[in-house]
């Protein structure tokens, strides 16, 4: 646990720094009210009403997110295996290769189905 104490220290220090300086800036900086200033920035035209959460956007992003989750999990699995790669028997190496191949198949599928194309 001691290993993490310096990290905690750093986090605390950084937080304090960030918050203090942000607080400082509100104190130091001016505050001149201007109604237009507090509107969302949209090139000067009347801003589009936005529901909180952003409304609709292309599904492509969801696909990216899903692919990311899948691959990230793959990486998570690879990491402990990679670290102990040279202590593992051949079987475990083969198993990981099979795992990667299994990953490659849906990847190929998405690729061919143009799931990764942006237009």
């Amino acid at each position, binding site marked *: 646990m001691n290993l993490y104490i310096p990290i905690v220290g750093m986090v605390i220090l950084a937080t304090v720094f960030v918050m203090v300086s942000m607080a400082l800036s509100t104190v130091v900086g001016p505050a001149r009210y201007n109604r237009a200033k507090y509107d969302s920035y949209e090139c000067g035209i009347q801003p589009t009403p936005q529901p909180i959460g952003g409304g609709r956007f292309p*599904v492509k992003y*969801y696909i990216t*997110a*899903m692919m990311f*989750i*899948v691959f990230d*999990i793959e990486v*998570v*699995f690879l990491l402990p295996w990679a670290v102990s790669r040279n202590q593992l028997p051949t079987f475990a190496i083969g198993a990981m290769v099979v795992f990667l191949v299994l990953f490659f198949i849906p990847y190929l599928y998405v690729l061919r189905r143009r799931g990764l194309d942006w237009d």
Partner: protein
Amino acid sequence: MSPEGYLILSAILFAVGVAGFLLRRNAIIAFMSIELMLNATNLAFVGFARFHGNLEGVIAAFFVMVVAAAEVVVGLAIIVAVYRARRSASVDDANLMKF
């Protein structure tokens, strides 16, 4: 080492998840509640693994992560499809079928 602290925490998280699922009407929130439940379980697994001194629980946590990811993928696909079709992700709006 006593697992009680972990167990209580995980139980609380799990309960929060269940409550979230039951109380929130947005499908995505409900779904996130489920993810929370899975992660609470992970905590319990790891805590127990530590308590029993074997690795099975830790391995289980890994698998649960994968499963959670797979569930996210499938679940989001469905939720997005529903959302796009009817512009709402509220569970209450899904009412074409009754009893």
